[in-house]
């Protein structure tokens, strides 16, 4: 198996892009990643996307995007794993390069969510859960997160306002990110008075509905230096699954697939959580940040929520998270998120994060969740030495 590196990154700002289509967004991201990597050929294109069929009436994104960006002829396919589609596509690209099936691979993630009214998007997102026994009973995806959050608060005696530091941290870090959807600070008062979506989850617990696309270029590490001075090496790539329905979980707050995927990644990289300099986790809702930190080994069960109040998650803290705004404030175009996360880590490891730079960042982890962690892909990246 070959070692794999990222040699190019490209992203669109995350926003309500009413003037841009799915193709426009994906094309922009892929082209800028190819320009950044200075490659003159591409062997394959993998596209992470969740909702193009139901929200845009468009499937078959592999061929569509390949043709649109001038890569007609290459192998190209769409990869779907709900909100984990981006990292699932990255993993496929990684397998192709590591397995010596392709040399130069572009992995893109794209999502176009704002062409439809809110209740249609809400129904579409619920497709990440169990259709027959969750969605058909009226449980929105937010409601499923609310059930977890309520149970967490009950079991560990936590108040809703104790989740505020996660949102405050994410928004603070988004201010210096030109690609972030919400580059402005919020206060604890804003958090506590935000309108309720599905209690106890309110608007400021939740990541936004938005549009965006991001792309990376992969190649074998042994030739990475011929394209860029600052390749970012993939030290680990690990995927795991759990029950798609919450009611089938043996341990509701345990996030089994997060634990499995993280443990596999640590093993591959021969690292422990203490070695990780920053962690781009899947903060689709504040409760997901807490459960991901716990299941990934950064906090004991029931203690994850306190990492925020103790300042451990800030840039300069013990384990900085959402360093460019995260899903909450950078934005969460669902099928593209896994690629945005990896790009945020790559920017940190290249030392290009400006005001948000994590000092001497050498090892960064990105973790992308599909559904309520039914698919989890953990990627550990390392700065070129």
């Amino acid at each position, binding site marked *: 198996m070959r070692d794999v590196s990222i040699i190019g990154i490209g992203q669109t700002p995350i926003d309500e892009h009413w003037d841009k289509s799915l193709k426009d967004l994906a094309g922009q991201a892929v082209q800028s990643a190819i320009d950044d990597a200075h490659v003159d050929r591409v062997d394959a294109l993998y596209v992470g996307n969740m909702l193009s069929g139901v929200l845009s009436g468009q499937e078959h994104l592999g061929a569509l995007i390949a043709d649109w960006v001038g890569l007609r002829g290459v192998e190209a396919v769409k990869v779907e794993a709900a909100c984990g589609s981006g990292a699932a596509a990255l993993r496929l690209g990684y397998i192709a390069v590591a397995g010596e099936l392709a040399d130069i691979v572009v992995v893109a993630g794209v999502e176009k969510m704002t062409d439809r009214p*809110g*209740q*249609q998007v*809400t*129904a579409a997102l*619920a497709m990440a859960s*169990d259709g*027959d*026994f*969750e*969605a*058909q*009973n*009226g*449980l*929105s995806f*937010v*409601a*499923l997160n*609310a*059930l*977890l959050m*309520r*149970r967490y608060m*009950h079991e560990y005696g936590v108040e809703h306002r104790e989740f505020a530091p996660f949102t405050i941290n994410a928004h603070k870090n988004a201010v210096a990110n030109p690609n972030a959807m919400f580059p402005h600070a919020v206060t604890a008062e804003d958090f506590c008075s935000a*309108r*309720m*979506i*599905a*209690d*106890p*989850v309110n608007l400021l617990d939740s990541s936004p509905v938005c549009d965006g696309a991001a792309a990376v270029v992969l190649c074998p590490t042994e030739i990475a230096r011929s394209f860029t001075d600052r390749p970012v090496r993939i030290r680990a790539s690990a995927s795991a699954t759990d*029950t798609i*329905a*919450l*009611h*089938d*979980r*043996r341990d*509701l707050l345990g996030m089994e697939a997060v634990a499995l995927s993280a443990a596999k990644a640590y093993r591959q990289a021969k690292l422990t959580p203490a070695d990780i300099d920053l962690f781009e986790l899947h903060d689709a809702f504040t409760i997901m940040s807490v459960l991901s930190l716990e299941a990934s080994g950064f906090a004991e069960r029931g203690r994850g929520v306190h990492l925020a109040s103790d300042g451990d998650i800030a840039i300069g803290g013990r384990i900085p998270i959402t360093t460019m705004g995260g899903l909450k404030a950078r934005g969460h175009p669902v099928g593209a998120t896994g690629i945005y996360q990896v790009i945020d880590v790559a920017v940190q490891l290249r030392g290009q994060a400006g005001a948000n730079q994590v000092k001497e960042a050498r090892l960064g982890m990105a973790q992308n969740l599909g559904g309520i962690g039914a698919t989890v892909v953990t990627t550990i990246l390392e700065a070129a030495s």
Partner: protein
Amino acid sequence: MEIARHWRLQRQRYALVGEVCTHCGDKIFPARDVCPQCNAPAKTPFVFSGKGEVFSYSTVHYPPEGFERFAPYVVALVRLAEGPLVAAQLTDVEGEKIEIGMPVEMVTRKLSDDGTKGTIVYGYKFRPVINLSGSPERVSKPEAPATHPTHRSLRSASRALAPVGKAHLRQRGR
């Protein structure tokens, strides 16, 4: 419309029919034919009592398409007396203070409809347990399934509805 999809689920939706694993004894809902605990085949039907308690809950203020006119409504994970969790709406809870641990029982209610000419989907929801004096009571132990009158009537309801569904499908087939 998805008529066949809803018809397939009628035993589960109308009568909480799940499965029991003959290997480890685990009670399974919804049915999945493979025991989630021990991965052995589990195809023996098991009828749940419909009794349980609230394990977690939430009020949905921004509903998905198809549920707009019910909002705000309460959803919950209910821990059934026989063990498994089930995701469902709570009903008859206006003015009730909902709490984790609150005893609830299954009732059959309208889940959704699809305009004036579309399918009306019925299924289980859970309501606070009512005793004869009308105030909520805490159930100390679950009633045996076979003697529970609500459950019996539901089972016969599902039998009565089955031929209707099948007749409809045959008609469509021709």
